[in-house]
């Protein structure tokens, strides 16, 4: 496991955003802004002593499971898994090429990935099943699932949420990347989710609401997850900005699924290389 201090985490988040921007640029499409809203969250999971994992043994039985239910953000996970040595970094440059390891949505065949995701509303229920299986087996591994807030419009999310609280799956943690946007519009303009924290509470979950770009908030919310006494599963509503790090793509609905190309790519890169302060 790699453990970084807060200043290093901020640098790492910036580095990972740059990796994602370049990867999507080489493919010509991809969910850059979906990756950027959850960059600090995923970086914290892997570099802030939260998840237990072993890049040299991806299927290590006592590892924690990370289910990226919002599979569209696989770019940020790929960047991190490559950085940690799960697979060769060169695979990032080959994404979506003929016979490549990586694609624009997450496949379980990627070392370090637990589940194929991309069809929204599925990974979270699978995570609940894994949490039940792990608890029955007697281990203390936890399952952390990262959901999109738009994904929470899927009914299957709430089926799984009801199930997890009914079965007291306190080894299951849902982190909702609450960037307020889905594909075409802001969430409140489609089918609103607020008060999203109250909704999770009503479904029997312990809930925390945090700034999803603040490493102190993220690590604080996840402290002690392996020894939780509360029987309820834990939902962390992480308020984020879709496209965080590059102002001209932040909170722009039509940027969903778009890579930055040409001049926009150069300008985006300058934003990230320029200050390295994302995450503050």
């Amino acid at each position, binding site marked *: 496991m790699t453990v970084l201090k807060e200043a290093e985490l901020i640098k790492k988040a910036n580095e990972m955003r740059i990796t994602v921007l370049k990867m999507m640029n080489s493919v010509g499409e991809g969910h850059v802004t979906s990756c950027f809203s959850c960059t600090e969250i995923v970086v914290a999971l892997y570099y802030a002593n939260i998840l237990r994992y072993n890049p040299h043994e991806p299927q290590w039985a006592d590892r924690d499971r990370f289910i990226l239910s919002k599979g569209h953000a696989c770019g940020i996970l790929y960047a991190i898994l490559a950085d940690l040595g799960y697979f060769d970094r060169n695979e990032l440059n080959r994404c979506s090429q003929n016979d490549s390891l990586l694609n624009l949505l997450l496949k*379980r065949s990627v070392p370090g990935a*637990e*589940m*194929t995701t991309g*069809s929204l*509303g*599925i990974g*979270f*229920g*699978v*995570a*609940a*099943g*894994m*949490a*039940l*299986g*792990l608890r*029955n*087996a007697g281990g203390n591994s936890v399952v952390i699932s990262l959901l999109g807030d738009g994904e929470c419009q899927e*009914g*299957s999310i709430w*089926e*799984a949420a*009801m*199930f997890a609280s*009914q*079965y007291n799956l306190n080894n299951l943690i849902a982190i909702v990347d609450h960037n307020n946007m889905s594909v075409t519009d802001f969430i409140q303009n489609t089918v609103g989710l607020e008060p999203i924290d109250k909704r999770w509470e009503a479904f029997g979950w312990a809930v925390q609401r945090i700034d999803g770009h603040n490493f102190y908030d993220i690590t604080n919310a996840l402290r002690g997850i392996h020894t939780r006494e509360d029987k309820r599963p834990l939902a962390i509503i992480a308020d984020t900005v879709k496209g965080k790090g590059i102002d001209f793509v932040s909170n722009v609905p039509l940027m969903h699924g778009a890579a930055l190309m040409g001049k926009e790519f150069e300008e985006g890169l300058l934003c990230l290389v320029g200050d390295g302060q994302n995450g503050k």
Partner: protein
Amino acid sequence: MANRNLRDVFWDEIYNQAESNQKIMIVSADLGAMSLDKFRKNLPGQFINVGIAEQNAINVATGLALEGYRVYVYASAPFITLRCYEVIRQTIAMEDLPVTIVGQGGGFSFARYGSTHYNIEDIGSIRMLPNIRMYCVSDPTQTAILAQYTLKMSHPAYIRMDKLAPDCIYDEGQINIEKGFVCVGEECDTLIVATGNTVALALNAQSDLARMNIRCSVMDLFCLRPNVSELVTALIKYQYAVAIEEHTISCGMSSLLCEVVNDNEIHLKLKRLAVNNVDGYGEIHGDRSDIEKYYGITKESIVATVVGMKNGN
């Protein structure tokens, strides 16, 4: 002694293994059976009721399978196949996980409830998915052997379980799950192909035709992904065939037969008795036999079709 319901035969076999194997789990979408009461009482950690939430049943089963469990999902057949079809595709099918879906209520099992509970599109739907093996059982012996087989499978499976408690048709030695079908009758030029509950109709038609001095064999095609080379070898012996099923005429067992006949250039005159729902399901109410009559899925239809084919129609 009354016949045992097929689902109870199945679950009793699984229970006997689950007693000594904690990795066997049942995920029920709020569906019960007398035989499952034992699970609830004696093995509560291995019986999970997810409530009326079929999508979640499949997702939870997937998570359990990824953690090394052998999982059985039990739910009403039309809902567990069609309500969460895409979920099945993304999870147990694409990931090729050892999850067996037991869909209760094949065909018109729940005829009295009307068209919401008809289960006549499941075979076609599941046939399109990768990796899933599919079975439609007709007899307690076959069901028990299939249950044992699923305990060792490394692939997903869907079992279309009829509501009936039929008479025993087979001895153990007649059933070969890998082969996928079993034939009853002497060698002749005419074959009746059936699956699930229509096997009993086919056997009754076979008897009626025998009284008319028309000999027929009956093929119980209980696996809807059978061993094709074995099936071809069996089919080339016949000149005439009638296929009967409680499924839409599109994409079901009889369509499978058409594909095998066509793709292997078998010279077989094949007629099909199945549900034509192009113009909807009709407002027919009644018990199962009434619905079967409405759609022409009867012993009498088989006899008339065979006689007609023999007379050159």
